[in-house]
């Protein structure tokens, strides 16, 4: 297991010893500093769509320099939570503080310091990768855009596709470009939805290594929604498991595995999902 729960210092895995990532400044681990104000602080967050509580009074915080995994089956409320953290969706009630700012009142104070990548958000199809990244670099107020793009192209192995249109890229290439867009402003808070979806195992491994390295180098906080449990075990310091809009369990990946008497986080996830299904059926049966 590559989980961070053991407290071991993160190291760049051997498979990352290729030139691109090796060019990154050496890993300087900035451990989560629990005393410092959290990068994300969510209190009693609710979002209802009619009678349905998509997010039901959840509270959590994410420390600087940490990676938090947001797990849950489809429809558990992960995307809704992320949309509220990004300010794309207004909550029904509750409070969200990001980088010390109230997101509901002052989101523009922090949007330039955070970023997001998701395979479900695209970029303009007819623009080249370079054009897309240039536009977003300008939107985020990046200085020395040429240098930033060169570095991202190097780190994420985009050199050969920088002048190709986004439309013509493979799914895996698109995922890397979307990640490059999310890294364009070197965010202090990075929100990721399925960051390695569509990637082959080797590319996915490289991206995970890149994220670890980025976190170690900058002390950025990462919130990661993923269905890939080995990925979560490898990257995350903290895991939040959501079901039907609520956080039903949380903790260090290793602690959750031990608490549930299982071997892997995937087994823990399945346990929780199946228990919830059974209780859901009992509830609906009683109601019937």
């Amino acid at each position, binding site marked *: 297991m590559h989980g961070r729960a053991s407290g071991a210092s993160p190291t760049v895995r051997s498979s990352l010893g290729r030139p691109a990532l090796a060019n990154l400044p050496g890993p300087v681990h900035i451990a989560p500093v629990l005393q410092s104000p959290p990068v994300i602080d969510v209190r009693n967050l609710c979002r209802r769509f009619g009678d349905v509580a998509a997010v039901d009074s959840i509270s959590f915080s994410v420390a600087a320099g940490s990676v938090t995994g947001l797990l849950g089956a489809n429809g558990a409320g992960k995307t809704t939570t992320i949309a509220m953290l990004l300010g794309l969706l207004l909550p029904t009630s509750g409070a969200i503080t990001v980088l010390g700012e109230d997101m509901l009142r002052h989101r523009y104070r922090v949007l330039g310091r955070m970023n997001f990548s998701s395979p479900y958000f695209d970029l303009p199809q007819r623009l080249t990768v370079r054009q897309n990244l240039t*536009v977003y670099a*300008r939107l985020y107020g990046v*200085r020395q855009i040429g240098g930033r793009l060169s570095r991202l192209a190097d780190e994420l192995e985009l050199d050969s596709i920088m002048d190709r249109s986004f439309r013509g890229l493979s799914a895996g290439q698109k995922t890397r470009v979307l990640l490059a867009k999310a890294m364009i402003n070197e965010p202090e808070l990075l929100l990721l939805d399925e960051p390695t979806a569509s990637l082959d195992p080797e590319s996915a491994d490289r991206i995970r290594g890149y994220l670890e390295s980025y976190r170690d180098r900058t002390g950025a906080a990462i919130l990661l929604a993923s269905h890939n449990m080995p990925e979560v075990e490898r990257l995350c310091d903290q895991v939040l498991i959501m079901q039907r809009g609520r956080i039903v369990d949380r903790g260090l990946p290793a602690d959750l595995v031990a608490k549930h008497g299982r071997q892997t986080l995937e087994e823990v996830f399945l346990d929780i999902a199946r228990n919830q299904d059974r209780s859901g059926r009992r509830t609906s049966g009683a109601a019937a």
Partner: protein
Amino acid sequence: MSAGGSEHGASAAPFSLRRVSALVLRYGYLLMGSWARLLELAYWPSVQIILWGFISKHFASQSSWAVGMAAALLAAVLLWDILFRGQLGYTVSFLEELWSRNLGQLFISPLRPYEMVLSLTVISLIRTLIGVIPAAVLAIPLYGFSLFDLGLPLIAFFANLMVTGWALGLFVTALLLRVGLGAESVAWMALFLIAPVSAIYYPVDVLPAWLQAVAWSLPPAYVFEGMRAILFDNVFRGDYLIGAMLLNLLYLALGGLTFMLSFRLARRKGLLHQLGE
């Protein structure tokens, strides 16, 4: 400032020309990336002017009365195209964001909605000029008609029609924000809803009384009547200009308000990250 060299102070600023220019650049890349797209912009206005030019010529050869009408018809075709291209340039650029599922990306960046509105306005102006100038120039050698002979009033007409196009564009984009691509066809049709009462090819007094009231509540009627006053009577009607300007200010303000309300509603309903193909 972050390690990445981005200006956090600047990104938090309520208005940034850099962000506006970033989005203009995005649409500029799209235009410059395809000669076919650029040609298409100029193609339809040019075809229109060729078609209407020959129709006018034919009428003029049949009747001396129609000689005076020919210039008015050609001027009307070109001015209508300014309005049409102004509105279309605005809404098609916004539609590009929906087609490419890019709207969510934009609104998680520091870009403000009103900066997007300004960017759409700039690109609409650029697209209109690319579309209409070749047609206007084409009319000079083909029919001996120069729209530029209208002189300074042409600037007033052009400005007013562009603003009407933007106001309508704001209403249409507000609708697109609300219902997504389901309202795509409205982007193409919206302007034709007001065409019959815009007095483009005929004066307002041709309309029934109740429709005349509708016509005078819309800025284009003032512009086209003003155009006819110059061509037929050689008189510049300042009252028409003021009427068009005041109505444009009203519609622009209402359009802006509708767009911002629609944006807020989209955030409340969670539409911003769902809009797209």
